[in-house]
């Protein structure tokens, strides 16, 4: 399956650029990572054999992955569990060296200049907290401020901004061990951005959170991308989040890049995603297929249209064309949600 690889762009950042104008682009070229693990043989004899002569196998976690993220863009890195998303993020954050290929994050090769890269990035890894368990949240923020050498006034201003968006002040004097998951992840997000990094990596940041907090986090991320011009690479299994936040997605499975394109492209690529049910004012009007739109069936006076081929329009374009062509008295849209689309994408990608 062929996706649309974007050429690296030095697009102007929306709004204010973060971190002293560092270009927050991400370039990934042929990135691969192989892990070597020991296979344990089954049974008692097998276990003994494994002790004497362990069997080593190579597992290709990421294989020849290439993509770009422009400054100020939010890209969703999607794929089923074990697809290689986290491994990719770990290579881009500099805590894992690739076996082959190259990556640049804000102009820095992360695994070669770990500390320089650390100043340019912020990261949240799911439910793993970087806050100090026994200390009030604000004390963790102060330690991080000191580590990243953030001036006091800047730190105060940024905390104020994050407080407005994430409502932190109601619990930031509480010790981390007493926070709820949602409160903790909000604090972790703030902690990851306190030093104003141009690039942010978020590995399943909203996992296990309730809908209200999820929405708050999404609003926060949107603000960081649109208003602060941060580049965000997000992995998630939450398709509402993808639909709400990402214009572009990269889909990987079995360590390989399957598709790099917009959500519309994914919808088009992975099967029928919409139906338009139009009730004609005159049921005797002869109905013919329109370009890219097939007449799927008739249900009395109701005609059911669906996409036809690769040139099929989006549901809204199709609706416009149908209304322009026929006089309709009633119309209804059925659009497969992104979850269904991604399920189809994962299944098809798995078969590649």
């Amino acid at each position, binding site marked *: 399956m062929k996706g649309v690889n974007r050429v690296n762009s030095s697009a102007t950042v929306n709004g204010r650029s973060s971190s002293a104008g560092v270009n927050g682009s991400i370039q990934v070229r042929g990135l691969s990572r192989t892990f070597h693990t020991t296979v344990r043989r089954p049974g008692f004899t097998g276990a003994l054999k494994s002790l004497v002569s362990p069997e080593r196998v190579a597992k290709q976690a990421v294989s020849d992955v290439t993509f770009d993220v422009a400054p100020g863009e939010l890209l969703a890195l999607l794929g089923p569990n074990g697809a290689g998303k986290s491994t990719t993020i770990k290579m881009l954050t500099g805590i894992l*060296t690739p076996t082959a290929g190259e990556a640049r994050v804000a102009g820095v090769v992360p695994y070669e200049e770990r500390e320089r890269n650390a100043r340019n990035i912020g990261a949240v890894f799911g439910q793993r907290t970087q806050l*100090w368990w026994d200390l009030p949240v604000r*004390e963790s923020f102060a330690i991080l401020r000191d580590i990243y050498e953030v001036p006091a006034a800047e730190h105060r201003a940024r905390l104020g901004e994050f407080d407005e968006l994430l409502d932190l002040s109601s619990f930031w004097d509480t010790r981390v061990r007493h926070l709820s998951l949602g409160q903790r992840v909000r604090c972790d997000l703030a902690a990851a951005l306190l030093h104003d990094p141009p690039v942010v990596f978020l590995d399943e940041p909203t996992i296990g959170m309730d809908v209200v907090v999820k929405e708050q986090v999404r609003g926060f991320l949107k603000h960081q991308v649109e208003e602060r011009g941060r580049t965000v690479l997000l992995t998630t299994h939450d398709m509402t989040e993808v639909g709400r936040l990402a214009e572009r997605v990269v889909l990987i499975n079995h360590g390989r890049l399957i598709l790099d394109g917009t959500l519309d492209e994914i919808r088009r690529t992975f099967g029928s995603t919409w139906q338009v049910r139009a009730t004609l004012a005159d049921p005797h009007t002869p109905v013919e297929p329109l370009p890219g739109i097939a007449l799927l069936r008739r249900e009395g006076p109701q005609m059911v249209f669906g996409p036809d081929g690769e040139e099929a329009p989006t549901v809204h374009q199709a609706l416009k064309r149908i209304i322009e062509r026929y006089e309709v008295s009633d119309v209804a849209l059925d659009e497969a949600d992104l979850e269904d689309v991604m399920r189809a994408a994962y299944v098809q990608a798995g078969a590649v």
Partner: protein
Amino acid sequence: MSVSAPRGWRAARVTPLGELHTPPRMTAALLRLTVQVVLVASLWRGLYAATGTTAGLTRDQAVTYAVLAVLATRIRELDQYSGRDTVQQHMHFGTIVYWYLRPLPPQRYYALRALGEQVYGLAWASAGYLICLAAGVVDPPTSAAVAGVFALSVLLGQWVQYYVMLVIDQLCFWTLRNGAAIMILIFAQNLLSGVYAPLWFFPDWFITLSRLLPFQATLSVPLSLYVGRIPVSDAAPELALQAAWVVALALFTRLLWRRAARRVISQGG
């Protein structure tokens, strides 16, 4: 914050601040120290009831040694576990990745944190020492020279202790868990450094074995200097040996840090 403060200095506050935010932990530490001091003082006084000098040590020397050894545990074993801040816990929860995601090398973070712990522990031990001194439980140093040499030896001893604990923590990068190693270490360290009993009470082969390991340098040497078991005139070689352990362990742990980092970046945390 002063301009000259080293970057990341607040890491030094992590463990002490965690304890200050948990009064029950402080109460428990205070209670433990009080009970232990009373018990060891009574024990050694009881043991000396029938004799004036044993293994070349007077009663007051033995009590002073034992009580100081108890107070020193406050510098040696601060609780990182409750704060989920041991290396083993970071490996277990996968949060060790954050140590490698900051512009502060993990070894510097570890050292700053340990420095804070030891300064905090020293404040406790010093307060305990002054109380015991005022109560007549321990003897004061016999001269200013003894006090000075003792202070220098304590500093070197704690430095060795820091590296020993670091080696055990670094083990986690290969074994993920170090619970068993820590239990063995704490027992061996307390035994071989003279926490349970001054080393002169042990057979010669044990003392020889103890000299081949770094543990004696952590506590037995400074306390022996304090109580006069090692005279100030013989202090130089002992201090030199402590310094040698510091250098050797510094080089060894530096090597381990490098290998640990390679291991993290080959396994991805």
